[in-house]
């Protein structure tokens, strides 16, 4: 029997039982639509997060003291397990600033202290840095100004408050020009940050920011916690990274004792997390396709008993068992494929609707998820029809003709 004839017979059978056909189409379509929708949600979330992340600083390199065993992919882990061999210093930062491919540099010193103003007192995190921090981390001011452009190694009794710190200490009072006591020193408040949430690893809203040299004096520590470096452009990232390692090593008696993490590495980690989430969602949705497969089996078994006489007739006319099997399998594959296409359509419509409802996110199901959904639907339709098709083929021709 020719494939085209098998298909034609299958199509005729499909059209003869509209109830059964629409039931199967619906079951398969729901499964495929679920895969498309859920993965488009996962993908939307991934795009949102990586997009936000990329906006934070595209050519950012983070220099931290200590040589991490793992570099590249495990950026987050590298920051944690980096062993402190030798402190990074402000002089290192200044040396890095002189590299041609480096646009700007912000060294960071971080520590905690007790801040007080009149009767109010609380623990705060102090961040010592330079004026470049504002631009590198894409922060913005609510009032006043950020740290002024002064040499890194010059201390100055000034500070900038995070949004929360400002409102907790001063409430309705204007904080600008007030003197805040931190530990043994005092600093004049020259600016208040906009509400910023988290920028990189810092809760900006909870910070008191001061010149890096002042922070070093406050904590009586000569080193810096890390150095943020912005390369001139995306292409020079790798070269800048090599330069930084070389120059700092030269300054550290030839010892390579720093780790340079690029934002790409962090982004990669995020991306792979979200890929996992999307795949998990796809897997959950795929279960509904297996359920659809069970329904296909059920419906095909009913179809076999409905068409017993017809099967008997085909056998009498010389149909081989193999031909009967391929007839039923063709039918099942066609049904599940059509259902899958319908599901793609519904899923696509659904994710467009979601896009209208939540315009912040971009809901686009990944191509692999759509392909996998269609493939799973068709394969599940095929597998679950093998049993009914074989049952049809093995009917005794004499009994089948009699409708028994």
């Amino acid at each position, binding site marked *: 029997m020719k494939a085209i004839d098998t298909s034609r017979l299958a199509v005729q059978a499909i059209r003869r039982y509209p109830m059964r056909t629409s039931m199967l189409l619906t079951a398969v379509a729901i499964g495929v639509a679920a895969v498309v929708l859920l993965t488009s949600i996962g993908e939307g979330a991934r795009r949102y997060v990586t997009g936000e992340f990329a906006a934070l600083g595209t050519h950012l390199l983070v220099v931290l003291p200590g040589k991490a065993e793992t570099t590249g992919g495990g950026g987050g882990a590298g920051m944690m397990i980096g062993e402190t061999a030798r402190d990074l210093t402000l002089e290192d930062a200044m040396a890095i600033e002189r590299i041609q491919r480096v646009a700007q540099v912000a060294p960071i010193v971080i520590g905690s202290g007790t801040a007080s103003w009149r009767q109010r007192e609380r623990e705060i995190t102090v961040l010592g840095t330079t004026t470049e921090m504002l631009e590198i981390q894409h922060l913005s001011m609510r009032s006043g100004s950020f740290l002024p452009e002064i040499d890194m190694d010059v201390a100055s009794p000034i500070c900038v408050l995070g949004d929360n710190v400002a409102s907790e200490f001063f409430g309705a009072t204007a904080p600008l020009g007030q003197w805040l006591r931190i530990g043994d020193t005092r600093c004049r408040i020259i600016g208040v940050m906009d509400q910023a949430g988290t920028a990189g690893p810092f809760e900006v809203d909870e910070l008191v920011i001061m010149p890096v040299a002042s922070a070093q004096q406050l904590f009586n520590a000569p080193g810096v916690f890390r150095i943020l470096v912005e390369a001139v452009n995306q292409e020079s990232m790798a070269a800048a990274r090599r330069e930084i390692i070389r120059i700092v090593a030269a300054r550290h008696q030839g010892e390579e004792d720093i780790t340079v993490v690029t934002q790409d590495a962090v982004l990669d980690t995020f991306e792979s997390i979200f890929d996992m989430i999307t795949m998990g969602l796809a897997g959950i949705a795929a279960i509904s396709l297996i359920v659809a497969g069970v329904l296909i089996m059920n419906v095909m078994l009913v179809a076999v008993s409905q068409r017993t006489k*017809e099967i*008997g007739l085909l056998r009498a006319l010389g149909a081989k068992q193999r*031909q009967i099997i391929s007839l039923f399998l063709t039918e099942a594959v066609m049904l599940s494929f059509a259902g899958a296409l319908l599901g793609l359509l519904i899923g696509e419509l659904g994710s467009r609707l979601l896009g209208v409802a939540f315009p912040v996110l971009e809901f686009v199901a990944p191509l692999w998820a759509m392909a996998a959904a269609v493939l799973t639907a068709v394969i599940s339709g095929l597998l679950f029809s093998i049993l009914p098709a074989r049952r049809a083929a093995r009917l005794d*021709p*004499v009994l089948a003709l009699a409708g028994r």
Partner: protein
Amino acid sequence: MMRLRQLCRDFQVGDQVVHALDHVDLEIRSGEYISVMGASGSGKSTLLNILGLLDRATSGTYTLNGADVSTLDDNALAEQRQENIGFIFQSFHLIPRLTAVENVELPMLLSGTPVAVRRERAQEVLEAVGLGARFDHRPDQLSGGERQRVAIGRAIVMKPSLLLADEPTGNLDSRSSTEVVEIIEQLNDDGISLMVVTHDPDLGERARRHLFMRDGKIISDDGDAA
């Protein structure tokens, strides 16, 4: 052309074994016109199913065109049915969603005959059974007699050597019956072997050779004498 030797077909019904065919010996020559009569349960349908290769003997041998077919596997039996046997059923067994010409094409479709050849041959056969104007009618648009004629067309489209008819007029009025019988007798005149299983004595009488069955045995056969 066909020879049954000591052929038995047993059915297990509950704990009882029913001998539907009980050591049957039968020889059918090319071009014969045979009727098989007998009460219900006498084994005449089983004989027809065995001869049509739809059913297998429990024991004994069946030789078709010189070859022993009792040992063939399912695929080979299907091929033999396709090439050598045409069936005509009491209830026509047309596929309702296919047109007359498509129903007739069905055996050729199963054998993989090219479309063009298939359509031409099916139309030829429908002309031959007097349905030239009704190619595109579906079974529910045809009368009983016309449906049976479509079924006859389908049975002979592969040019089989043996036509097996099980109560071919059982569901027809007398006028349609006459038409149908005339058509199959004409086919017999053209050389095809014809076996008709029937309860109807008038139809049975028309054959040139008459078998009577009871309890799985052929109790009378006027063919050997002829």
